[in-house]
């Protein structure tokens, strides 16, 4: 029962209606960027718009895109996980090893995802125990996990037996003969995690912890637990991506997933997730990854040397960071000095 029934009106309360501002969704920038990009690339090279090429872009975006989804949650709590690519690789290698040992491929895949979540849990517990930013902790565990992967896979491409089993045929298959399985998982998970971030208590607490950790703590939210859970989620989706990679390619090579963590961070930033925490967009991150892969695809179509791909990705990240910073400065300026547009 509430005791607030007799509370009097608040004296000194400003008697103004807050001005209604048109608030564009966080992913607006990424959607516009993707639309313009597809239009320009299609104009420059009509073959870019062929369905087979567009589905190829979706396919290439799917696995690093899964990591980007997890990264949104981590970034929203003001943390960052640079070990996700290594977790991807170790989960795939671990799954392959279990298959070689005779385990059922589906069970091995489940174990691979669980191993990814377990590595995320270790990251999270280290962050809490050492009271260090996840950036520093995962920088260390990145090297450790990568080392373990190389030891387990003996530094060579590892192809488990059992090709032709349901696991491999399902994950290397295509729905309606055109849509890759990884793409379907990517799209479904994007929608599901969007709901988790914006409609569930967990997602709400992730945003609260990232926005104002002290307020969240004083409100009784276990901020440490929330951060650990986001890192577990990150590890689980990285593990899932590793398992899908193994299923669709039939093998895991030493360099696979090496750039995925940075790509995931880049996609999340391009998609409107702020590095300063508090908010994030899962759909934006997915679109951000499509932007990155579309650019890479267009560069390949135009015969641009592959080494320029890394440069372009880096330049896009810098651009996205600059835009994020400008938006923040603009908001701070408005909060401190009023609306410059009157």
């Amino acid at each position, binding site marked *: *029962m*509430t*005791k*607030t*029934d*007799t*509370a*009097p*009106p*608040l*004296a*000194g*309360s*400003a*008697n*103004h*209606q*807050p001005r209604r501002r048109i608030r564009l969704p966080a992913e607006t920038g990424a959607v516009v960027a993707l639309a313009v990009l597809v239009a320009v690339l299609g104009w420059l090279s009509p073959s870019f718009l062929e369905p087979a090429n567009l589905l190829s872009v979706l396919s290439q975006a799917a696995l690093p895109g899964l990591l980007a989804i997890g990264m949104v949650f981590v970034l929203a709590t003001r943390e960052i996980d640079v070990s996700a690519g290594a977790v991807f690789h170790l989960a795939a290698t671990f799954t392959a090893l279990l298959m070689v040992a005779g385990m059922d491929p589906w069970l091995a895949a489940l174990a691979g995802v669980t191993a990814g979540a377990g590595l995320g849990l270790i990251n999270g517990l280290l962050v809490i125990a050492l009271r260090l930013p996840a950036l520093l902790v995962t920088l260390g565990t990145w090297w450790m996990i990568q080392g373990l992967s190389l030891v387990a896979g003996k530094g060579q491409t590892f192809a488990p037996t059992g090709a032709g089993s349901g696991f491999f045929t399902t994950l290397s298959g295509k729905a309606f003969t055109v849509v890759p399985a990884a793409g379907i998982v990517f799209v479904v998970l994007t929608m599901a995690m969007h709901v988790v971030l914006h*409609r*569930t*208590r*967990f997602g*709400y*607490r992730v*945003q*609260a912890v990232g*926005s*104002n950790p*002290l*307020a*969240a*703590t*004083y*409100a*009784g*939210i*276990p901020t440490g637990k929330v951060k650990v859970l986001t890192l577990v989620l990150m590890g689980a989706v990285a593990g899932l991506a590793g398992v899908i990679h193994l299923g669709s390619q039939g093998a895991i090579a030493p360099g696979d997933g090496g750039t995925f963590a940075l790509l995931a961070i880049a996609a999340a930033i391009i998609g409107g997730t702020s590095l300063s925490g*508090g*908010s994030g967009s899962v759909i934006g991150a997915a679109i951000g990854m499509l932007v990155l892969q579309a650019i890479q695809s267009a560069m390949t179509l135009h015969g641009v040397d592959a080494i320029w791909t890394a440069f372009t990705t880096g330049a896009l990240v810098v651009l996205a960071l600059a835009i994020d910073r400008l938006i923040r400065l603009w908001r701070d300026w408005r*909060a401190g000095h009023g609306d410059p547009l009157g």
Partner: protein
Amino acid sequence: MAEPLIRMQNIRKSYGRVQALEDANFHVNEREIVGLLGDNGAGKSTLIKVLSGAVPLTSGDIFIRGKKVSLRSTSDAIAHGIETIYQDSALVTQLSIARNLFLGREPIKPPRFLNRMDQEAMNTVARDLLKQVGISKNIPPTTPIGSLSGGERQAVAIARAMHFDSDLIILDEPTNNLGVAETQGVLSFVRSARDSGHSCIFIAHNIHHVFQVVDRIVVMRRGKVVADDIDPKKTNVTEVERIITGMSDKEIRDAVADGTPSH
């Protein structure tokens, strides 16, 4: 004599060699507003952090209505009916008014395992609370709380504590950086919290604000409670300043004449 709502007994808190609290004794009665005063480093913030579960005590006992309790976290304190409102850390400005009201206590729709928040229930309660705190200007509860003024945000934070039936509301510098009218609004809202059955601890640097609203003043100095039964109706600001600083009246007059701040 009835047990007080809160009784803190022989509280000690040390940070390494630094003794922040030294056998501090403190109590709050039912339906009472206590002003907690002290110079910087006197120990009032540490005392409040111990009571709100933010820091563990080194030794001592805390009783709620005579029953010994252990406050190991902020959620422990909240579960025992103790809500702390820090001016800059009470609310998450990016989140909506409704979501802020339910920060840490979000209602869940069935089935519970899906963990979905009941946004409609939150909005309904938020609309009622906005009216109850005097912000009845048709602000949608989905508006970010950053749209409200400082005083309104304080009122919403206090209303949140009242809605969840907190027995004790700790207000840390609730009038800091507020204008005159907004300060009066918050002070009147604190009084209404007391009148509707809640107890409050009021911490403010501005002693005049404390005098306007509290029933009893407690003064801390060097980690100890040096006065715990000052009636604001029977004393004056200068006398309380003397107790806070430990200076005599003449020393205070000399310090003021010299331009040296006395607190």
